[in-house]
């Protein structure tokens, strides 16, 4: 604005490895990265659906393919990213939802706990459908 009297300010660019400086930054980047794995799981699910649609042979081929060590490792990593994302998401829930009961805010850990409970119930239901039902 006033060039004569405006010597350059020093701008420090953020280092490429800034996300290694703090555990919370790392967690943040991992959560961002988890989207890649979630995308993979979606693709994996679609491949499964396609395989089922094409008949038994195709389904068996898909299962064999899925059992390859590389894919098992990839899916375990993906699962851990999903779990990581879910946990951080539920821990965040009390921040986003402030629920008042009788004019008093419900403590954050109760809100988080109710989310975990819902997760457990939903998982149980799915497990029952898939394994038991």
């Amino acid at each position, binding site marked *: 604005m006033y060039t004569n009297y405006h010597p350059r*300010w020093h701008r420090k660019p953020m280092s490429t490895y800034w996300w290694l400086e*703090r555990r*919370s930054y790392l967690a943040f980047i991992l959560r961002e990265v988890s989207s890649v794995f979630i995308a993979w799981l979606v693709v994996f699910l679609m491949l499964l659906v396609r395989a089922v649609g094409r008949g038994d042979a195709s389904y068996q081929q898909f299962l064999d393919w899925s059992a390859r060590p590389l894919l098992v490792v990839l899916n375990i990593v993906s699962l851990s990213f999903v779990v990581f994302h879910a946990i951080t998401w539920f821990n965040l829930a009390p921040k986003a*939802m402030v629920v008042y009961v009788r004019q008093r805010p419900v403590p954050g850990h109760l809100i988080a706990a109710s989310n975990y409970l819902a997760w457990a119930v939903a998982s149980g239901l799915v497990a029952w459908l898939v394994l038991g039902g």
Partner: protein
Amino acid sequence: MNDRITMQVARYLPEGDAELSYQEYEVPYPREWVVLDGLNYIKDRLDGSLSYRWSCRMGICGSCGMTVNGEPKLTCATFLADYAPGPVRIEPLQNFPVIRDLVVDTGDFMRKLTSVKPWLIREEEKPLSEGEHLQTPAELDQYKQYSMCINCMLCCAACPVYGLDSEFVGPAAIALAQRYNLDGRDQGSKLRLDVLSDHEGIWGCTFVGECSKVCPENVDPAGAIQRYKLTAAMDSLKSFLMPWRGS
């Protein structure tokens, strides 16, 4: 010397320097001395050319935020003895351009603060003759936490998104927008929502959570932003499902 601590202080003179450099000073550190006392000792006794901001030295004016050993801190509320035996490194707040030594340019914060309309908006002013707006202590508690922001900008310095994305409104300004949105006397939340969601503003936040950790006043800007996202999401969902209700 065991009764002295080494302070490594970032220096930058825009007329000459291209980069920050560090200068070392030996200062005493009695139990009751804060980092700011160390800086004042340097300025008063050792080197009058050191520049930094400070005023109230009781943690309420928000002037003296700096980076102490890598963490954003109010230097008037951070004790030197906690860093013994040293050295302790003092740098300007991160994510802001440095004007000189430990002084950063806060213009960006001021512009963003103004952009979220941090004032009480009423459709119709209540005449003074009708007295106060009633507000129960519980209603006050709804927004009180967010009204405690002292604009020290430690949260902005701790937030990597603020450093990476120049459009991001930043934790402090969003917390202050929420301070008014959640105040029962205010009727301007719609106007602020337009500003914040227009901007791509709040969606930049991916909940790193550092802003709330470094906040000296427990304002919890991270919480404010998540709540805001929920509100914004509900709002756009509503206008998608019920377009006739208009904006």
